[in-house]
């Protein structure tokens, strides 16, 4: 496609606010987000939530908001890209907080010299992700930084959603006796990104698990107050989230290593790289804490939804050793599973 004020790469002028900026936004970016409701570019967009919402699920009257910035390197990796990540990641933060995502804003920081073709690739991916997640991107912003001062492309998205879970999940509601559930197999996203970044041929087949968690989370909302807490296991992996819960709620957690699901390939590659799947980032897996009495129902519900087929109960919450997460190993030994330290893979999401 021929542009008037730039050719195949982002220039500083694209960020100046003048004609080139206008063309970038109108001709390159906006087409991916234009809709009947949002057909012109405005500084701010209004939105409304329907009074009645859904059939079975009810709107609690609370709105939730979240924001996240995406700096993943490289921007395109097996199974995904920064575009879809910026949509799903933010939607997922809302979903695990008990909300149905609805509206997003998007902010781009583009480095001078970044290929327009890669920008449109990311945009197309964002549009597809937004459609899958049933959300609308209704406002945005674009800035350009000089060559060498950015990472190609950075994206910030802010999301607003309707509260659906009642009560909303909260770490303080976690109590001894509760069951710990992992919604899927661990480790794919981090390994896929690392493999792409470091050109690791041995990890060639592994694809990121980036995806929309709302259908999975929503299937647990009917548990009501028996759904204590949810969080997606991104940076730092499951180990980080479990430790956050243990210290946030002042409880102990025990995990059984043999019940944690890891795909064979991910297991082999992480072993070779000296990484622990419990510490690797995921973008399509979350941890749910539910009342023990609802464990079976929760697992069945998750397994019936796409992406939750390998959901598993992996451990429990205890009043022993508060603040500490213990792992029971495959030989029935016990050891602490601490906050991950040392080599945390940078720019993974």
């Amino acid at each position, binding site marked *: 496609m021929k542009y008037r004020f730039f050719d195949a790469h982002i220039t500083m002028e694209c960020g100046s606010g003048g004609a080139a900026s206008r063309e970038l936004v109108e001709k390159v970016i906006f087409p991916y987000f234009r809709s009947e409701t949002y057909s012109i570019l405005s500084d701010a967009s209004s939105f409304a939530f329907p009074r009645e919402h859904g059939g079975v699920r009810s709107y609690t009257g609370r709105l939730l908001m979240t924001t996240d910035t995406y700096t993943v390197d490289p921007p395109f990796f097996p199974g995904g890209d920064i575009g879809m990540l910026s949509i799903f990641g933010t939607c997922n933060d809302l979903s695990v907080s008990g909300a149905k995502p609805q509206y997003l804003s998007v902010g781009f920081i583009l480095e001078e010299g970044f290929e327009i073709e890669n920008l449109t690739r990311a945009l197309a991916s964002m549009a597809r992700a937004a459609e899958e997640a049933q959300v609308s991107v209704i406002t945005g912003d674009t800035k350009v930084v000089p060559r060498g001062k950015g990472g190609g492309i950075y994206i910030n998205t802010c999301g607003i959603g309707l509260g659906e879970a009642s009560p909303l999940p909260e770490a303080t509601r976690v109590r001894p006796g509760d069951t710990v559930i992992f919604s899927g197999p661990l480790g794919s996203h981090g390994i896929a990104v690392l493999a792409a970044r470091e050109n690791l041929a041995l990890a060639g087949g592994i694809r990121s698990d980036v995806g929309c968690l709302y259908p999975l989370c929503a299937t647990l909302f009917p548990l009501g107050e028996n759904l204590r807490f949810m969080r997606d296991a991104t940076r730092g992996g499951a180990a980080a989230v479990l430790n956050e819960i243990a210290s946030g709620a002042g409880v102990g957690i025990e995990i059984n*290593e*043999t019940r944690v699901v890891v795909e064979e390939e991910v297991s082999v590659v992480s072993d070779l790289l000296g990484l622990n799947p419990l510490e690797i980032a995921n973008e399509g897996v979350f941890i749910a804490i539910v009342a023990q009495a609802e464990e079976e129902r929760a697992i069945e519900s998750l397994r019936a939804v796409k992406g939750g087929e390998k959901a598993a109960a992996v451990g429990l919450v205890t009043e022993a050793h508060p603040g500490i997460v213990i792992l029971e190993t*495959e*030989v*029935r*030994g016990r050891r*602490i599973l601490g906050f991950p*330290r040392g080599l945390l893979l940078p720019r993974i999401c």
Partner: protein
Amino acid sequence: MSTGIGKATGELADSLVRGIREYTDKIQFEVPHREIVIMEVCGTHTVALRKHGIHSLLPPHISLVSGPGCPVCVTPSSYIGNAIDLLRKNDSVLIATFGDMAKVPDERGRTLAGEAGSGRVAVIYSPADLFGLCERSGREVVFLGIGFETTVPTIASMLKAARGAGIRNLSVYCCFKLVPPALKALLRDPACAVDALLLPGHVSAILGLGPYEFIRDLYRIPAVVAGFEGLDLLTAIYMLLRQLAGGTGFIENAYTRVVKEQGNLKAVAIMEEVFAPAESLWRGLGTIPLSGLSLKPEFSDFNAEARFGLPQLTHREPAGCGCFLVIQGRLKPLDCPLFGTRCTPDRPVGPCMVSSEGACAAWFYYGASAV
């Protein structure tokens, strides 16, 4: 992780643990309250034992202590200092190192990681990375040669290839060490209270069992070569206890799927082609004859020490640091006064807290045994 054979592994583990307890009871019956000290020679074992939670399965009175098998931990303190001084004095030099070495402080608290701003410190993951580095950097690449018999054959092979490719801007600052002489020095020391040895898995894959025969001949204590999975470790410990209960002291191999009795003859041959045994200075153990490797005369053009006139290695323990005792199995990390207070993985005083195979780092990260 979930492999589908979890239950079988757990049951097998249970029966090994039962066997360990029975033998321990038998030994306790003969000599009540006797503490049984098993030394895990190799740093990778220290970490594997922690990772699998083995300490939590062993009966009291069995004490697992670390040994000198962590290459970073036994390197003399002035080695890093010499490398940093070289880097600072000579603009054309680029230091290439494996990751751990970059974070160990020298006698003045400086680290190679701290010199990263010079743009002349490269962390590599394999010796093969050195070729590309030599080509691209246009500098004098000095590779920090730390490691035991496991790593040496690959490096020897790489040097042969470098010679074949006519590479002139590569040298190795040799500080390679050999395990059997260190074990000899340890066992000969009257202060040594080790009852049994868990022998290294990877080093033994190279050397075979022959070099350990002196343990049986001179000291008659049980020694078992072990693998790294949970069951491997429990099996090896079971075999050690079985020998202790029976009063025997011979070498056994519990890692037969990788370690052959005669070792890897090809690897040893390559090692001997490029390197020759030499006197070497060990943190904690002092100078031990024929316990290190230096480049043979035919490969002396790769010798960094000669090329750059590096000073002789010395060692001085940082004030209060217990590493030299930890690697001899005479001090447990938890008992070091600096552990967890002045010395943590973020602000390490000694290498045992830095190295991914260091005993102190393993204790710190995976927790003490009482869980």
